[in-house]
């Protein structure tokens, strides 16, 4: 009997979750949703302190999390990743895709940190916010994201025009907002959930001036929570905004987090003592938890992020003579040489240090991670040539040796063997240096020390990327890239000419060049970018370009970010979901459960969530 009950728990939980998360508010007054989903408060510890809550300037995730919970955007995502109205109740786009008009929700108010009303939220607030970010004096780190799409945005930022009237953002009346774009942007809605497109009250901005966002008293709130207290390196407190327009979907009343520099060490113990709601379990203590039957029930995997890590081959080597850059240049331009390493790298072995229990979920076979975007009811990584790459493991001993022999034959006489491969890593933590040692020994063992000589070189964390990747001071390096908007275009930037990653445009292979001076890859990306009407075709074109980068082994796709393991009573899959922007940092919709989920429960819930999401995406695709 007990067993059945236990098995039922995840399903019950899921049912509860789905009831609250997805079903639209019933018209017949059934028990109000908030009653159904009662939740305790959240207590936590954190080790990374935020530096500012000026959401118009910052570009770090931790700082977004404040704005994500306290300031609402025009649109939001539900827990399956479907766009829903938030502060805009409805919107329309002109036929040429350039003019977007939003109807602003009436009666939403700005509150200060004490919860006192300051003003009403109007269309002008979005205009004022853009005006603030477009002012170079405010040194916004995210300005480029908005000024690259808004008409005349860049010109205004660089000072070519000084009349803000010409910038493509207007408040037509109190409740109507209009954006005019420089060029059609099919993913514009997804950008609106990112911080530079958040509203800000112009009068308040003028009132506080430089102090905007320096502490919790110098920001206004209109979202699910009010940031009621923030003592730097001490404590943060959010309380529920009782006047929130969607208050019924906010279940956690209060969130209190305490700062502790050693939080990652202390948190698991504090969680066991019941002092906090959730804790990350460091990889090192994972065995400890998994082998203890009581504790094993409390650990579950954390979600992975959309940061993509890949090993890049540098086509424009610029490293000291002791690592033989000329020799490397010959080698790297040999496709078989790259392929030998591509298929020779045992990615699982490298990822095992991070996640010994489910290393597969960390692996990423493409540059764009799974679940990032979908088209025609299909995940992007399963479109066209990407499907084969996604479904086959790149590590293949036999294939690697085959390519090695071919490379050896072709390079014999030209190159000196072993080929020196300079591989920089940052000395900031142990994880990367461990990985470097593993990769070195694994590759050399497989391909032979007479073929390659991998030389890991440690660099200090300060100025790391400028000293290594950006300077071309590497042969093979683990690089990463995170998305800026919900479109695969964002993942092409590192490899497009003028990138600072591995300069594939300098590859000497004539097959990569076109007559018009562009590279084959450049043309593929240009064509894909130009396709703004037929989104399905756009995705296929991008998929083809991405598959080309991987097939030619310019990079070795490696893993995604995030992951790790958690012991937490916070409910997964109930918070808003989106691969980009601030959605998944929100507490809205979540509850604190009676007890934490186990890995099995979590995986079952995830499977269900993935099914639901697929169904929702299909429905959405059919609706359009």
């Amino acid at each position: 009997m007990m067993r059945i009950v236990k098995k039922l728990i995840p399903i019950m939980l899921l049912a509860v979750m789905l009831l609250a998360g997805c079903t639209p508010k019933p018209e017949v007054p059934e028990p109000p949703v908030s009653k159904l989903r009662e939740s305790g408060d959240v207590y936590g510890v954190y080790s990374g302190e935020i530096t500012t809550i000026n959401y118009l300037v910052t570009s770090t995730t931790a700082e977004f999390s404040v704005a994500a919970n306290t300031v609402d955007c025009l649109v939001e995502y539900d827990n399956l990743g479907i766009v829903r109205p938030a502060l805009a109740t409805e919107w329309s786009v002109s036929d040429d895709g350039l003019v977007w008009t939003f109807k602003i929700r009436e009666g939403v108010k700005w509150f200060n940190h004490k919860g006192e009303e300051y003003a009403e939220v109007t269309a002008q607030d979005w205009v004022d916010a853009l005006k603030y970010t477009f002012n170079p004096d405010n040194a916004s780190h995210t300005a480029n994201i908005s000024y690259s799409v808004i008409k005349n945005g860049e010109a205004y930022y660089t000072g070519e025009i000084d009349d803000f009237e010409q910038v493509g953002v207007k408040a037509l009346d109190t409740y109507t907002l209009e954006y005019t774009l420089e060029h059609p942007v099919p993913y514009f809605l997804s950008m609106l959930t990112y911080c530079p497109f958040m509203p800000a009250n112009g009068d308040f901005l003028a009132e506080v001036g430089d102090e905007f966002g320096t502490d919790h008293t110098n920001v206004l709130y209109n979202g699910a929570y009010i940031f009621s207290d923030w003592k730097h390196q001490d404590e943060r407190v959010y309380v529920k905004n009782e006047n929130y327009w969607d208050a019924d979907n906010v279940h956690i009343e209060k969130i209190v987090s305490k700062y502790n520099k050693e939080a990652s060490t202390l948190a698991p113990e504090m969680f066991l003592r019941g002092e906090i709601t959730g804790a990350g379990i460091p990889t090192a203590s994972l065995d400890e938890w998994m082998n203890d039957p009581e504790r094993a029930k409390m650990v579950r995997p954390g979600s992975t992020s959309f940061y993509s890590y890949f090993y890049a081959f540098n086509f424009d080597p610029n490293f000291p003579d002791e690592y033989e850059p000329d020799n490397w240049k010959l080698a790297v331009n040999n496709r078989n040489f790259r392929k030998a390493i591509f298929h020779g790298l045992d990615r699982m072995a490298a990822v095992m240090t991070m996640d010994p229990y489910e290393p597969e979920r960390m692996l990423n076979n493409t540059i764009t991670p799974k679940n990032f975007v979908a088209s025609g009811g299909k995940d992007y990584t399963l479109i066209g040539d990407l499907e084969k790459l996604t479904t086959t493991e790149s590590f293949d001993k036999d294939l690697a040796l085959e390519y090695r022999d071919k490379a050896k034959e072709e390079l014999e006489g030209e190159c000196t063997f072993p080929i020196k491969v300079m591989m920089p890593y940052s000395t900031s933590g142990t994880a990367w240096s461990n990985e470097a040692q593993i990769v070195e020994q694994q590759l050399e063992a497989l391909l032979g020390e007479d073929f390659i000589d991998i030389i890991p070189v440690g660099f200090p964390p300060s100025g790391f990327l400028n000293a290594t990747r950006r300077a071309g001071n590497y042969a093979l390096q683990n690089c990463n890239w995170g998305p800026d908007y919900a479109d695969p275009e964002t993942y092409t930037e590192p490899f497009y000419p003028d990138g600072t990653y591995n300069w594939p445009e300098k590859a000497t292979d004539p097959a990569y060049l076109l007559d018009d001076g562009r590279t084959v890859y450049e043309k593929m990306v240009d064509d894909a970018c130009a396709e703004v009407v037929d989104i399905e075709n756009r995705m296929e074109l991008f998929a083809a370009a991405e598959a080309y980068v991987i097939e030619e082994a310019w990079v070795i796709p490696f893993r995604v970010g995030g992951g790790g393991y958690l012991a937490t009573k916070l409910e997964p899959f109930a918070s808003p979901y989106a691969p980009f922007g601030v959605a998944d940092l929100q507490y809205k919709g979540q509850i604190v459960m009676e007890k934490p989920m186990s890995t099995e429960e979590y995986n079952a819930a995830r499977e269900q969530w993935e099914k639901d999401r697929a169904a929702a995406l299909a429905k959405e695709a059919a609706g359009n």
Partner: protein
Amino acid sequence: MSSRKEEQIVQAVEDQALFTFAHYDPEAAERIGYSDYSYWGSTTKIFLKNKTAIFLLVLMTSLITFTIIQPYLPNQKPPTKIHVDPVTGYQLRNQKPSKEYWFGTNVIGQDLWARIWSGTRTSLLIAIIVGVWEVLFGIFIGAVWGYVRQLDAFITEAYNVMNNIPNTILLMLLAYIMRPSFKTMVIAMCATGWLGMARFVRNQIVIIRDREYNLASRCLGTPTSRIITKNLLPYLVSVIVMRIALSIPGTIGWEVFLTYIGLGLPIDIPSLGNLLNEGRQVMMAPSLRYQLIFPAIVLSIITISFYVLGNAFADASDPRNHY
């Protein structure tokens, strides 16, 4: 006495066959006025009476000898080699101490036994280089600073400037210019490490430089260098030795801190700092604590030995304890 002498001479003259003149032998004369006291001899003698110190001295010597010869012993594994399970191809991570891996393996499957000895070698080498430099340069500057008043203002100024520029800035710059390595580490530590010793010696000298015997020396026209080396420094031997004894574990501790902020040695050069830092990350898992405890024990042995030896030697080298 003189009358007796005369008498003897008279007798000798009278009795030439019985007595011969003794030759004046300066060496023999010296021997009579000689006490068998020697400073270092007494120091050694007193030191050797301390059983604990002898034990630790033997322990330390064998430990140092062992770290040097360890790689040449049979059945030793290279410290950076990652051991892989031949069947599954996965790393043998976090293996408990066993017959094969005497101290177990770390999170990526490297042999902890080999790493600890290799690390001890690195750390001791750094500590000794830096320690010797600290002593030579620190004492020299400290002695001049404390005794030569004309230089007091200048050295105080230089000291204040150097002492108040945060080490972290210098270290970051050095690491940025030269990349983290053994050489960087040694240079960085030598650059500022002597400051403490110099100030310490200076304070000691200021305390005793105006004592009467120094005044007397000066009156007699003894040169400054001689006053410093013969009058002042011997007096300070005991406290300086104590300080040296602490500076070696101190250097190792500093290395741990540097590793912690990302400016230490690259991890493929094992050092006690690296090992402790790695061990600290698994401290919360009781079954993995051996990864912290083994390096911590080695570090503690070194620290305790140097501390106790330093104390014993300081006691022994204090002339007032001699008899």
